[in-house]
């Protein structure tokens, strides 16, 4: 009799403490010069000119070329990074105000359905100062899944979903 590795349930990833906040562009994810947003003047990214400077916990903030989405408290998409546009085949302007669950759905067998993802997002957009993880897939695709980091971003309260493309 061959020995089968026993399947076992692993616990949900624990929420990580948020840590210090960093600033990045909502389109290209690059940080501003000096790493801080200017106290006066424009929040527009000086590098690409197509995104606004947002802040998020360091453990969550995307790196340049990361795919990520910005969602408001009503779970409507408010921003899509350049990489996310390519990944989801959707322009930011077309994704605007769509429900995030129309674009991404949970792909985690352990997750408690779509409500779990929505709950994480609402919690993040409400300012919960922690970073959680989930497994998601594009709503119209099967066989593809991404680990996603979810947490708060600002200065206007929102939730940030950073997709780990591996």
């Amino acid at each position, binding site marked *: 009799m061959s020995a089968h590795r026993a399947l076992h349930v692993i616990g949900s990833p624990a929420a990580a403490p948020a840590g210090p906040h960093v600033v990045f562009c909502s389109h290209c994810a690059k940080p501003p010069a000096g790493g801080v947003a200017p106290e006066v003047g424009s929040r*527009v990214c000086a590098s690409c*000119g197509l995104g606004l400077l947002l802040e998020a916990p360091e453990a969550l903030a995307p790196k340049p070329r990361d795919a990520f989405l910005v969602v408001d408290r009503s779970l409507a998409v408010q921003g899509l990074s350049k990489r996310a546009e390519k990944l989801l085949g959707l322009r*930011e302007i077309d994704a605007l105000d769509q429900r995030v669950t129309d674009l991404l759905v949970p792909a985690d067998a352990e997750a408690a359905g779509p409500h779990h993802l929505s709950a994480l997002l609402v919690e993040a957009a409400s300012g919960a100062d922690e970073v959680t993880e989930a497994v998601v897939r594009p709503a119209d695709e099967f066989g593809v899944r991404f680990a996603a980091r979810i947490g708060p971003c600002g200065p206007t309260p929102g939730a940030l979903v950073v997709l780990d493309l591996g």
Partner: protein
Amino acid sequence: MCTKACMVAQTCPELVLFWTEMRTLKTSEAAAMLNVSANTLRAWERRFDYPKPQRTAGKHRVYVHGEVAALRDALRDGLSISSAVSRARESLRSDTHILVGALASFEPERADGALEAALAMRSVERTVEEVLLPSMAELARRAGTDSAAWAIGSRWATDWLRRAQRMTPPPARPGAILIGDATGDELDAEAPLVRALELFVGRTGIRVASVPVARHSGVADLLRALQPGAVLIAGRSASDEAVARFAYAVRAAGGSLPLALFSRGPEEESPTSTLLHLPLSVSEATAQALALLDGAPARAGGTVLFTERSNS
């Protein structure tokens, strides 16, 4: 310095709104207001089509102050440029909601105020195309053109457009266009659209005259006085027979002037028709009507928007 605007305001204060200077910004001023570079502004124009500059006679970009201000406010607490642009657009669209609400509530004074506010943010042409005409369409959809709201609203709109036309500077360039008004009466669903066409053509600096197609008696005298380079038939209420009689009278007196139809169906042109169909956008129709004066085929974006067909 006393401007024509202030002279008008003194003699006719209720018309002052037409002389409200739409505040515009040069590219450098708009960029400074938003704290971005001129290149970024042009990148936004390409990606978001906003803020959408107009062009001066020298082809320089000028931005409407209201559009830039709305974007500046939206950028303060946006989560992306797209969402800020969307909110800025929405804040400009609210003028339409206010105008429809005022007209549906039989409050012409509030409607005047709504249009005055819209004029501060836009050119006269854009105010008409983006606020007044969509509001009238919405009013017709909501209340119906047989309603009291439409009767009051339509009269208000055509009065406004006629006053705007009276305030148009005198013709400053050669050329004239005769409009054969094929709407039924002042409460016709298309009356505001046709009045808007008259206004837009007049504001290009050429002469324009409008006469109901049913009143073709003495049209020869009108043609001698106006010497139009083209004739537009606008509206769909008059019968084909009435339009044909008008067209015959015009051609008999004025020769083979180019004739075009505006807002007059059917959508599918008859293969035997020699008439040109102008687009429903008043500004595009105006541009194509001017092209008729130049004898050039009217084009938009490199595409021929109407075709001339022969009887043969």
